[in-house]
């Protein structure tokens, strides 16, 4: 499927991600030992045949620039097109946009600011997606069904994700056509939008135009909702693992779900591989005295201590006598001798000095800021 482009919204305003979102935007939060949140939707798009993916950035994107680079690790480094970073701040009063009001919010604002990119990328279909939604989904069948169904838009949804507020919820009729859209709270029987929409590029341009003309601030609860009577939105459910990064607690629980073999098989399905930045670490070394159980461990770790129910990112060192339980240690973390960690999220480059003890709880995992020594 060469005739599809992706548009990935990689900004987000989740203040509830706390310290994890200080050095980065939510889409750039490390997840699952090897990845950043947006690697999942980006890989889904690439696997569906997208050779053009525009990534819409806003704030705190420096870490994403480093991570994505030229897009080569996703095979999106192209002479023309490929991975294109779309900074809304790059907004220029070019002729195309002249006279449009770009001061609206969120997705609508991002779409308006990138009108010329959408206009100039001459693919027939567009997939919209959000970087903070983590799932492994083969989108090709969705595109095929979209074409066959004759719907204006195909939306991918799931059972409501629970913890979230501000989700976009939809009611559907027996033919899976969306009949209502609301936000904040779901009613029984409603589905939650995963922010994945498949539609023709010209249809997207029409929707943006409608939003501009009618001065609407929101894409889903504004433009789509208003047009529901005439717009055929086909809703299709995804049944696999989904995580939507919104709170630290949710991040922690979703991460721990990866210790379940079925979740891993679904999220790391080798038929739909998830790509990430290649870092060239060596394999992980287990020392004589290491004792690791029920844990997910990335490359480049050096483990001499005890690790249980935990996730170790690349290059983590666990010194002899250390005990790490129910914790997440991000890239290049150094956990000193005779330490005890339980329910801890250690951001990148954290050093825990010898003989320290740090304990959080399931409901309140303690975050150690990026680069800190404790």
């Amino acid at each position, binding site marked *: 499927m060469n005739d599809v482009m992706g548009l990935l919204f990689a900004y987000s305003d989740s203040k509830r991600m706390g310290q994890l979102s200080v050095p980065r935007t939510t889409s750039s939060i490390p997840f699952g030992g090897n990845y950043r949140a947006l690697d999942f939707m980006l890989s889904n798009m690439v696997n569906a045949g997208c050779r053009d993916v525009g990534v819409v950035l806003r704030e705190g994107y420096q870490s994403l620039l480093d991570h994505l680079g030229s897009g080569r690790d996703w095979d999106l480094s192209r002479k023309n097109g490929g991975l294109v970073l779309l900074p809304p701040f790059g907004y220029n009063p070019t002729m195309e946009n002249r006279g449009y009001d770009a001061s609206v919010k969120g997705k609508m604002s991002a779409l308006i600011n990138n009108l010329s990119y959408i206009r100039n990328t001459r693919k027939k279909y567009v997939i919209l997606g959000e970087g903070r939604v983590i799932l492994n989904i083969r989108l090709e069948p969705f595109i095929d069904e979209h074409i066959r169904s004759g719907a204006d838009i195909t939306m991918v949804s799931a059972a409501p994700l629970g913890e979230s507020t501000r989700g976009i919820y939809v009611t559907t009729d027996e033919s899976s056509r969306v009949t209502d859209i609301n936000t904040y709270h779901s009613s029984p029987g409603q589905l939650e939008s995963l922010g994945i929409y498949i539609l023709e590029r010209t249809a997207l341009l029409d929707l943006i135009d409608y939003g501009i003309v009618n001065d609407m601030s929101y894409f889903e609860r504004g433009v789509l909702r208003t047009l529901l009577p005439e717009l055929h939105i086909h809703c299709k459910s995804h049944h696999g693992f989904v995580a939507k990064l919104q709170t630290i607690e949710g991040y922690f629980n979703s991460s721990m779900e990866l210790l379940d073999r079925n979740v891993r098989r679904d999220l790391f399905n080798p038929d739909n591989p998830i790509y990430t930045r290649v870092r060239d670490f*060596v394999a992980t070394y287990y020392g004589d005295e290491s004792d690791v159980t029920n844990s997910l461990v990335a490359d480049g770790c050096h483990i001499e201590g005890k690790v249980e129910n935990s996730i170790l990112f690349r290059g983590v060192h666990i010194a002899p006598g250390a005990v790490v339980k129910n914790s997440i240690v991000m890239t290049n973390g150094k956990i000193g001798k005779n330490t005890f960690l339980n329910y801890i999220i250690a951001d990148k480059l954290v050093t825990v000095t010898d003989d320290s003890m740090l304990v959080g709880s399931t409901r309140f995992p303690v975050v150690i800021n990026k680069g800190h020594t404790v």
Partner: protein
Amino acid sequence: MIKKKTCVAMLLAGGQGSRLYVLTTNVAKPAVPFGGKYRIIDFPLSNCINSGIDTVGVLTQYEPLQLNSYIGNGHAWDLDRMSGGVHILPPYMRHKSGEWYTGTANAIYQNIPFIEQYDPEYVLILSGDHIYRMDYTKMIAYHAEKNADCTISVINVSLEEASRFGIMNTTSDGVIYEFEEKPKEPKSTLASMGIYVFNWEKLRKYLEEDEANKESSNDFGKNIIPTMLANGEKMVAYEFEGYWKDVGTIDSLWDANMDMLAPNSGLNIDDPDWRIYTRNLALPPHYISPEGRSSHSMVAEGCEIEGCVEDSVLFGGVKVGRGAKVLYSVLMNGVEIEEGATVEFSIIAENTKVGKNATIGSDEEIGKITVLAANIEIGDGVTVNAGDMVAENIGGGQ
């Protein structure tokens, strides 16, 4: 389009590597997996780019396809340069005739036009079957400083070992006055590592003369080096200190893998300033289950360990079932060890499956390494004896 380069590296990827037996049935020796993530050729290629040498010709006539698809555009080693980069160079047809490479020197001779494109001052000759980390720029600087015509990298071996190597006899200032191939009574312990720096003008002259000589077997060690010595060219030895191992045999390949686990072996790959690059497989982190154990081992991405792994090297995507034991072994990418099986002192090649309760190798005869070829299946309960080489499926009923 093509820029002048100070130094071009020519990597002799060599022949079939028959002393690796079933491991090289469908794989050229340089593409043999090593150390949990790598293939042998990753080492010279990474050394090149880390040394700032971005133009590498890989000379091969055996299974270039796999090497070609492994190396791809060279990006994994940062060798996807607009000018230079890595090129696979099989023998080719000129006008109406073509010929295979008859020897190491002939392989370079046939590729003189490749080298000439870059108009280099120096040519660095490397081989594709050694594990080592080396900054070639230091050797080239030494070569320039000594004003040598040829510099040969040597390593100090023990006197006992010396008779297995090509030995360089040097004067006190490092000038080579004699070269002895596998001398019975070695006069020195400086063994050639098969790494040469030549002034390109000089080397080209010798290659052309050697080619004209019908008696020559067109080999660096047998012909070019002795002739240059005999002609009084300035040849110096550059002493390398550090880990260096020829992995051309099953035993040495196993040894070198085990050296990955020994902090004192000198084989430290985990150096952020001298990364060994390799082709990435896009696998998730590995997982160790509540019943799984791993100690004194290297484990790569994508593994799922539910059994016990000790003193072993596990490549990407290896599965070790419940109750299975893997000891002193090397399991290459995608190997599956089912429940209750035991694997000891073995090398198992890619994607091979070992059935339930099977027994592969044993620790009773240390030094007898058992080898299973790639893509085969060993049935449930089968026993493979220590030192066996298995190239085909063995059914569970046997």
